[in-house]
């Protein structure tokens, strides 16, 4: 009997763009707040950023139901970690946990495109970037999601990262100040909004540094 074709897909792309930039003593994590399906906008006011630990924030775009499930799994695992170790997970530790969680569903993946941002144990900014099945790398900056292809070349130009192939390995963390980095992120989003239909409405920005967490929000084009 010829195999029937499925008439529904377990996946959907709810769109959106995420960006993170690591600084010497800060980290900026940002994502737009639009949630779409097909050519419709479901809501203009939806957060894609999740606080996983005191010094780890994850921004994820892709299939929203999978993103929410992934956030739930990681938050639960962090709670258990706190019970067992009486301390918060470090950002590099959370990075490894996220990778393992994603690979666990290698054969029915979480359709989530993640950027993890935070401060490492030395207080330096760190950004980790992922694919849907857990392949990850520590970088100085990253963009994921529908507007990533528009933002990444711009960031490459502005942040002039040293080659990861250099020996000894040079740090990719940007020498820009915190204010300059936040401004750069806002520019990234307003540019991506112009050309990517799935990016817009507003951008939510989280700034992590030694003094704590700060929130900023900018309105974007709603068309």
């Amino acid at each position, binding site marked *: *009997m010829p*195999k029937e074709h499925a*008439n529904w897909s377990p996946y959907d792309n709810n769109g959106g763009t995420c960006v993170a930039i690591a600084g010497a003593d800060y980290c900026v994590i940002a994502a737009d707040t639009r949630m779409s399906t097909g050519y419709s*906008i*479901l*809501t203009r006011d939806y957060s894609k950023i999740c606080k996983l630990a005191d010094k780890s924030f994850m921004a994820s775009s892709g*299939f929203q*139901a999978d993103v929410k499930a992934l956030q739930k799994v990681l938050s639960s695992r962090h709670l258990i970690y706190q019970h067992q170790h009486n301390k918060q997970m470090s950002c590099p530790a959370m990075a490894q946990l996220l990778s393992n969680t994603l690979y666990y569903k290698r054969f*029915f993946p979480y359709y989530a495109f993640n950027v993890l941002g935070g401060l490492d144990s030395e207080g330096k900014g760190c950004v980790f970037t992922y694919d849907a099945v857990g392949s990850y790398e520590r970088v100085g900056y990253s963009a994921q999601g529908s507007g990533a292809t528009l933002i990444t070349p711009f960031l490459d130009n502005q942040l002039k990262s040293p080659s990861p192939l250099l020996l000894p390995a040079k740090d990719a963390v940007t020498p820009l100040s915190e204010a300059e980095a936040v401004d750069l992120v806002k520019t990234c989003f307003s540019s991506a909004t112009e050309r990517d239909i799935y990016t817009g409405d507003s951008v939510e920005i989280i700034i992590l540094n030694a003094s704590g967490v700060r929130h900023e929000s900018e309105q974007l084009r709603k068309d």
Partner: protein
Amino acid sequence: MDTLLSSEGDSQRTQYPYVTGTSVIGIKYKDGILMAADMGGSYGSTIRYKSVERLKQVGKHSLIGASGEISDFQEILKYLDELILHDNMWDDGNSLGPKEVHNYLTRVMYNRRNKFDPLWNSLIIGGVKNGHKYLGSVSMIGVHFEDDHVATGFGNHLARPILREEWREDLTFEEGVKLLEKCMRNLLYRDRSAVNKLQIAKITEEGLTVSQPYSLKTFWNFAAFQNPTVGAEGSWILCLMMFCCTKTCAFVDASFSFIARHGSA
């Protein structure tokens, strides 16, 4: 038959919906939540059932509206019944609010999607608890969110734009109903699975009511539909009409003269 890889032919998983309900719309208003849905149950292109209640109460504080497969909605109502029963059995003075019900349903829908056996519905949950208004949506694959106004199916295309223009935080009950009726009328005109028999439900801190079914007035006598191109500049219809008028008149005249002279058969 190979039992390791069951063929699609004997699969018990949901493949496609059979009896379906169309759009549901929900809005927050000054005192609480308003939801609207028509009472149609379509079987493909046939409107088979015309008294399907697609808005149902859940516990003390919430209302659920469903579109999609009606039998799956009935299954969901059974799950919710059990949920509320166990909540009541605690007898601890606490009760599940709309946020909790929404979260529960999101988990149910997502887990069924994970098993490749979805409940083929798009759900809207609304309610008021301790003064907080809540309005949320869940789809058959678990995509969920909350907003000031939500809709399922065609409602996303036809009702949301109206709501984006005209929704306000401080809508009165009458204004809210008028706004919902405007959306439902638009759906009635343009959604072929819509029927002109609807219910509107209201939830406030005080309580919940689902209205009696009623119909909307529709308007078809737009001037532009009467004679669409009469008198239009250079239109051939104008010429043809004039040609036909004169020729017909002449023909009719001649016919009557002929009949008058020779008598009708």
